[in-house]
């Protein structure tokens, strides 16, 4: 007999089960840990962009109150690099170890580390460390400087794609555009600072780290210190988000752990906000050339998307801007290529929808430009090039409802009332601009382990090493257990974010839901199997019955004759504490389908030319991500991504001085992100909710990133509609819109 899924809990709108802990301050974040005898570390950070350290003068700092030790390249234990393999789960983006040598590759690089008895003493002494540098006269501070005078861009072959004859097809296209888009460096800026608390006991390391991937972090630490993974534990039960910056470990965590071992005390290290702009990753700046060819009916004939981004001088990070271009529209002749070029920045890393966010800004702006050229409605132009087949993989999409997203979004927004003429939609002092763009993101699923217990006291317990980065993973794990067992959410305890739990995925790539829930479900069923085996054993509630005759329904074991016994009674009768189940579930099925998510943004901006004021006033987003697990947390992800997309469109840019190569706006006052007052008057998120069972048993594809993709283009297209200005470089600044 099959076990019944209590389907109503899947898709329900449920508040976060960890909400009360967070609101009451009981949730312990990394830097909330103050261990007995703990020391505090503060960094000394490079004030040149490139060069070598001539001398580090510690004479004053060493005399300062509370100072325990000061580490630097001549006084630091010798460690190992991690192989940095995704497959081996020990990836980092910056492979260079802190204090490896006296070289400076970017400003804000760790050059020394003061350990003292208090945070204040460590910081005061860090300010008293005097470092003398031989600085390179011409550091490379920006992508354009790199292209002007850096090395030749390095092509990243593995992420490229080509089909048909893109160049010749473009040349012979009836309608052509050839445009270049530029996106700036952006910084993740999660609220919670990067922080490490490292504690060694008997040669074993416990690390509290604000991490989106405790398994990877554990493995990296094991590699760096030359230990078996069993001797390292990384804990990250709560994270004040990361947006990708906390996927892989950064030098601070290694520095903290090494310092703790050297001084023989637990050490806490919090990365200051200024250095979160330099030494914990960023979205690199890109320059993207797009060429589109189309026939007179609006059918794409050629599409090329060639992109270059800066990386650091020590590691290569590719921003795969063409990752969506490959398959979003029907086009036989297509090429995407990516290249990198070195700059004096820290190593870039994934930031929410890496590749796709800047890439779709370019592609979806260019699609708007071509629609204009063809004198077609931008929505109709996209529909004319709709495809249900991923031409880059030569596979059908497992489930695509992009047309429905277009239609439902357009209807809710009122797109049919759009007057295509530029600047034609006035309202008092303001001019309305309406723009739209498609969203797109790949759906991924990893291996995952999980453990679930049904406990005699009527509760259940689930654990997995994956993290809840604020998105609601705790809650949906509980929903999955509840769906199968009927146990209410408030009786389900979930533990996540500890590398000693069953191995789970990094919280990134929007794959945590699709990866974790099937493992949780499998472990739950395996716990039910264990329960059945107890029930049919001697002295059990169904002694002598066959396991197959029993089914589990709403907290009870039921047999074919209508006898039903609560699972708690099954356990108590045998004096058992619990019935446990474990599971290991595989990654996504290969070879039959391409798994991707889709959607569309419709955006209204208000432009007040009399005071050069631009605001986003209305957004409708229709999102096709398969089954929605929790309506509340899902809508919240899309709403948050819309806000972030507005920031990408209008505000965000991490700036470096072209002369000195030093960061200019590395603080929270001058690096602008949208604030509450920037939120549109109305945001409508339409969740299409079509389960994709080819992908996994829950039919869910994940929702963390897709909402930001296409958003900047939709804003830029709306701005063009309002002002007539086609802005190809982000952020869109008011001075670009003011008439000359």
């Amino acid at each position, binding site marked *: 007999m099959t076990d019944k899924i209590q389907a109503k809990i899947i898709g329900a709108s449920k508040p976060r089960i960890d909400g009360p802990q967070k609101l009451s301050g009981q949730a312990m974040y990394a830097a909330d840990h103050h261990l007995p005898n703990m020391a505090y570390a503060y960094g000394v950070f490079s004030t040149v962009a490139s060069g070598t350290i001539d001398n580090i003068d510690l004479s004053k700092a060493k005399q300062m*109150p509370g100072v325990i030790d000061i580490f630097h390249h001549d006084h630091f234990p010798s460690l190992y690099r991690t192989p940095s393999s995704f497959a081996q789960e020990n990836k980092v983006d910056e492979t260079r170890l802190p204090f490896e040598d006296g070289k400076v590759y970017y400003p804000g690089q760790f050059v020394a580390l003061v350990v003292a008895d208090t945070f204040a003493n460590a910081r005061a002494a860090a300010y008293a460390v005097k470092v003398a540098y031989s600085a390179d006269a011409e550091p490379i501070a920006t992508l354009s400087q790199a292209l002007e005078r850096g090395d030749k861009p390095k092509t990243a072959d593995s992420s490229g794609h080509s089909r048909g004859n893109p160049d010749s097809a473009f040349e012979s296209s009836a309608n052509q555009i050839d445009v270049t888009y530029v996106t700036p460096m952006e910084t993740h800026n999660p609220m919670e600072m990067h922080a490490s608390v490292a504690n060694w006991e008997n040669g074993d390391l416990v690390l509290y780290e604000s991490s989106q991937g405790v398994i990877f972090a554990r493995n990296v630490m094991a590699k760096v210190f030359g230990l078996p993974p069993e001797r390292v534990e990384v804990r990250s039960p709560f994270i004040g988000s990361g947006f990708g910056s906390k996927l892989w470990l950064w030098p601070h965590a290694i520095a903290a752990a090494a310092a703790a071992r050297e001084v023989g005390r637990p050490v806490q290290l919090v990365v200051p906000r200024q250095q979160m702009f330099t030494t914990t990753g960023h979205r690199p700046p890109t320059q993207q050339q797009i060429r589109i060819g189309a026939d007179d009916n609006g059918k794409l004939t050629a599409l090329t998307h060639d992109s270059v981004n800066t990386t650091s001088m020590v590691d290569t990070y590719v921003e795969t801007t063409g990752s969506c271009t490959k398959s979003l529209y029907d086009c036989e002749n297509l090429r995407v290529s990516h290249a990198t070029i070195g700059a004096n920045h820290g190593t870039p890393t994934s930031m929410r929808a890496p590749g796709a966010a800047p890439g779709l800004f370019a592609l979806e702006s260019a699609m708007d430009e071509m629609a204009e050229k063809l004198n077609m409605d931008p929505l109709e132009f996209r529909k004319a090039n709709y495809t249900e087949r991923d031409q880059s993989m030569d596979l059908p999409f497992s489930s695509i409802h992009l047309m429905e997203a277009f239609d439902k979004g357009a209807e809710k927004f009122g797109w049919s009332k759009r007057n295509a003429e530029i600047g034609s939609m006035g309202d008092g002092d303001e001019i309305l601009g309406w723009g739209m763009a498609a969203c797109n993101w790949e759906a991924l699923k990893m291996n995952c382990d999980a453990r679930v217990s049904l406990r005699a006291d009527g509760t259940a317990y689930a654990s997995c090493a994956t993290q809840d980065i604020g998105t609601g993973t705790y809650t949906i794990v509980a929903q999955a257990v509840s769906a199968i067992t009927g146990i209410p959410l408030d009786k389900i305890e979930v533990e996540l974010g500890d590398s000693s739990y069953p191995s789970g995925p990094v919280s990134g790539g929007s794959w945590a839901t699709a990866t974790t829930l099937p493992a949780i479900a499998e472990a739950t069923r395996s716990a039910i199997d264990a329960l059945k085996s107890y029930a049919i054993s001697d002295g059990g509630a169904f002694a002598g019955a066959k396991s197959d005759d029993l089914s589990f329904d709403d907290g009870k074991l039921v047999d074919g004759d209508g006898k039903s016994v609560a699972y708690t009674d099954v356990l108590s009768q045998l004096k058992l504490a619990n019935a446990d189940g474990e599971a290991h579930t595989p990654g996504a099925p290969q070879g039959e389908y391409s798994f991707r998510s889709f959607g569309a943004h419709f955006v209204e901006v208000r432009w007040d030319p009399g*005071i*050069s004021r631009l605001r986003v006033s209305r957004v409708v987003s229709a999102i096709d991500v398969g089954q929605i697990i929790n309506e509340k947390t899902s809508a919240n992800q899309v709403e948050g991504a819309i806000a972030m997309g507005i920031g990408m469109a*209008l505000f965000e840019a991490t700036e470096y001085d072209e002369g000195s190569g030093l*960061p200019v706006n590395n603080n929270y006052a001058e690096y602008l992100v949208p604030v509450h*007052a*920037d939120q549109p008057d109305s945001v409508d998120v339409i969740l299409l909710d079509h389960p994709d069972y080819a992908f996994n048993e829950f039919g869910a594809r994940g929702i963390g990133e897709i909402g930001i993709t296409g958003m900047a283009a939709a804003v830029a297209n709306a701005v063009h509609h309002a002002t007539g200005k086609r802005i190809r470089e982000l952020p869109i600044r*008011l001075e670009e819109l003011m008439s000359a």
Partner: protein
Amino acid sequence: MRNFEYQKADSVNAAVSAHAGQPSSFVAGGTTLLDLVKIDIMQPERVVDVNGLPLYDVEELDDGRLKIGAMVSNTDLAYHPKVVDQYAVLSEALLSGASTSLRNKATTGGNVMQRVRCPYFRDGVSACNKREPGSGCAAIGGHNRSVHAVLGTSDKCIASHPSDMCVAMAAIGATVLVSGPNGEREIDFLDFHLLPGDSPEKEHALEADELITHVVLDAPIKGSRSTYLKLRDRASYQFALASSGVIIATDGNTIRDARIAMGGVGTKPWRAREAEQALIGQPATEASFKKAAEIAFKGATPYEHNAFKIPLGQQAVVRSLTNATAA
């Protein structure tokens, strides 16, 4: 942050004498001071806490002026009934500044004394004449879009004055009351902040160890209306790219009196007297406002990235005058 000596004063005299003798700073709300101490840009050896001083009152004087204690918070001042009613430009300016929580801490005296937002001043290493006289100015030829001025700049410093409150006070007209080792004195608000000239490190007219005790606002102009308009990239929590505080009184459609002050565009809170004069006697029309706005920016010097502040500032002036005279 370096270690410093901390002293709490309970009277003006005690505060002034505690301040004397070594590099000291008063601390009021701390929203400027502690930020800069934490990033090692200000390095006082002694910090004198003035939160215990009896300077929390807002008092109407017999001559119609309004006397504001230095410790009155930006929030309390913005919502003071007299300010809301008679000095709308000040209330609106205050409420356009910073964030709610910052305004709750920030004080009147501290706001007058707040430091520039120039990134090169704050990074501790770039050439900056304000931080390290004679070292140069990295902002000229560097990133100078948002927090740099087009009026009152010199070849030594181009940082804009960040305050919104001060723009409103410059429009209203005010007197700063100070107390120092040599007793009390008054400084005209418009003379309080100094142009950078050759010595950008000297920002204001306070002598060593002097404490601001009050700011006294001029009596409101009879029959006037006033308003503040702040233009910036995001809708809140950003210093002005350009702002305009105006007070205007009309007889029928003819302008009888006008005050214009501007923020974000000047190296000090910028009063545009010539533009005001050009308005008086003129009809309250867009054409008059545009003319005044042009005059207000006569002689403005654009830098590489902030030339847009000239037209933007003019737009702020025109729109705020329009709003203040709207039916």
